[in-house]
């Protein structure tokens, strides 16, 4: 440990961490304190503020739009993750077949929608989903005779959002599962095969346990992302949509803070979102810990 006497070695880590530490202090610690204060204020822009105490908190729990946003966000998060995970895993398993040709190309293709930002996906799908003229309705009509007038952007705003997010993220999550599948013990798999275990048994008893850690990580990541969804519905419906069917928590935060100028109420909503997300992370940790004990 002789080199520890070297001054530069002692100073170096602090210097290396300095950029992060200063950004953290200025743009995270200070705003976090500020957001607690803001949550107890009503503002009209950053200049005009009025202390209201817990009025924001009281209001938010009686605010029907907040509940709509909360419900929509929960449904979206649950549905998109529930649909995405099996689909991503299935695609990954298909791609993982040793005899498959063109795996490299297919992986790239499935992954490519994740490169398109949510803003652009929103714009694109807002035209695709249009009644009577949109690509989806026209194709479904010509192929299967479905109604041309199916209201994707109106009554079916939520399914439309979920479909768009499936298109975006399925391939992305597939990548993680593909990486996870490399952890599957090949010998164990062959042994199971020798023992006459069927494909389903092999999946349940060999594959699934091997990919579980990464699976939990991917689920958490997707849930956190889904709870913060904003750009997709914002562009898809050009706002909250008919009857607020596309209103999400972050969209409501944005509307309150930046369209109405009430940074205080926006902070209140932000804290509720933060609490939900932290609870989710905690829950996921608890679950994965319990599993490793069992």
């Amino acid at each position: 440990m002789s080199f520890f006497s070297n001054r530069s070695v002692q100073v170096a880590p602090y210097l290396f961490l300095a950029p992060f530490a200063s950004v953290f202090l200025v743009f995270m610690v200070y705003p976090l304190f500020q957001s607690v204060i803001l949550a107890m204020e009503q503002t009209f822009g950053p200049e005009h503020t009025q202390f209201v105490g817990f009025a924001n908190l009281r209001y938010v729990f009686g605010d029907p739009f907040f509940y709509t946003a909360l419900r929509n966000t929960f449904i979206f998060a649950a549905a998109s993750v529930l649909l995405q995970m099996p689909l991503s895993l299935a695609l990954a398993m298909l791609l993982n077949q040793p005899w498959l040709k063109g795996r490299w190309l297919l992986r790239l293709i499935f992954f490519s929608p994740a490169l398109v930002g949510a803003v652009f996906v929103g714009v694109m799908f807002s035209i695709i989903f249009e009644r009577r003229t949109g690509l989806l309705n026209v194709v479904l009509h010509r192929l299967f005779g479905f109604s041309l007038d199916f209201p994707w952007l109106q009554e079916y705003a939520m399914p439309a959002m979920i479909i768009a997010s499936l298109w975006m993220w399925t391939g992305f999550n597939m990548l993680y599962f593909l990486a996870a599948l490399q952890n599957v013990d090949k010998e164990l798999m062959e042994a199971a095969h020798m023992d006459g275990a069927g494909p389903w048994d092999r999946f349940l008893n060999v594959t699934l346990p091997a990919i579980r850690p990464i699976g939990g990580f991917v689920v958490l990541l997707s849930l956190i992302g889904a709870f913060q969804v904003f750009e997709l519905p914002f562009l898809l419906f050009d706002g909250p949509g008919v009857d607020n069917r596309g209103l999400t928590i972050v969209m409501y935060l944005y509307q309150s803070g930046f369209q109405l100028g009430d940074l205080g109420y926006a902070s209140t909503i932000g804290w509720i979102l933060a609490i939900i997300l932290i609870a989710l992370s905690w829950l996921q940790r608890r679950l994965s810990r319990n599993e490793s004990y069992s």
Partner: protein
Amino acid sequence: MFERYPLGLLVILMVAVASAAFVALRPSADSDKLVFWTFTQDHQDIFREIYGPEGIVDVQLLDMQAFERRMLSGFFTGTPVADIIMVERSVASQAWRGPTEAIGFLDLTDRLEAEGLLDRINAPSQRPWTVDGRIYGLPFDVHPVMLAYRADIYDAAGIDIAQAETWDEFMEMSRPLIGDLTGNGSVDRFALEVSQMDGLSIVMLMQQAGADLFDEADQPTLNAELNVEVLTRTAQWFSGDEPVAADIPLFTGAGERLRGEGLVLAWMCPDWRARRNILYIEGLHGKLRLMPLPAWEKGGRRTSVWGGTMLGLPKNGERTEEAWEQILHLYTSPELGRTKWEKLYILSPFKDFWDDPVFDQPDPYYQNQPIGRLYLELADSVPERTPSVYFPFAAQQLADALHRTVRRMRQSGFTEYADIEPLARRELDRVQANVENLMSRNVFQ
């Protein structure tokens, strides 16, 4: 060193250097011009034409949502806003949500008085920009509403639809022309466009009936009896197997396409929309005509109001006097009053312009009707527009109320007025409660 670092780093470093050079070296925007914000492409085209590329004004086009956010952000924080702000009323009103001293627009009352303009302006045009007796914008318009209808189709069927005095008559007379014409199982022709996505349709119908959404003191009266009746009857248009009303997008390419293809026989058409028809539905040249709106009751009001724009100046603008001169010119010059009609189809709120022969010119798109005059004949009965900052919220809520009423009506299979009315009433009570709730929260007013 290159093999030590990823190719991506190299590429991105090159991009960083090149784009930084471009961003740093590009000439900054013309600073000697007055910046003029507007929110529709047509306005931008026309004002650019009026001012020319060398003119003193740089006309910029902003999307409504961006407009609202950037305008407020500029007012809040002192970041640059335009020198002249041409703004729709739903956006403008957001500026008076906070305390009075925080209103970002310049108070124009004294200037208007000094110029002797107040008496010349059509009174209803002034109300949306008046807060506590002070005026924050010059009204740009009157915006009477007429009904644009497919004269070619009605004529071919021998139906003189212009004789329809009430909405009931209009629907009755249109009935033979609508329904599933191609036999593909879905209705492909409707009588009237009524948006459930945009509150403007239902608000227009309510205002036509005479119901004000906010009273004189700007308190919401959204669940007034008259509103319940209008909502019920409007919802009824969507009932049954062959509804007479269709919900199509008002301002998108798909919407214009569907109107052009004849999905609807008629739509409510304020003066400015008469020009949009010409611009975006070329195929209907010579096929449309305009008539006063059918009234809700015989002898009732034959028009309504849709939209509203003001020209305002920012309170903290650096070039207020120059900008004031510009908007004054835009308003008081008879020549521009004429141009505004010829190019934008927007009636000037200055009553002394109304005698100008330009309004009597026949319009070939509308089968040579003198549509300027037709709109002017309705100008006196245009209902007032509220300046309430809660209007846009209420309008969106009303669209949702229509949507929900229609959905529940169809789920229950209702078609009768008496059955639908309770649904409509419940929705309007909810809307009223929501608006009251939101208003109760504002500690600044």
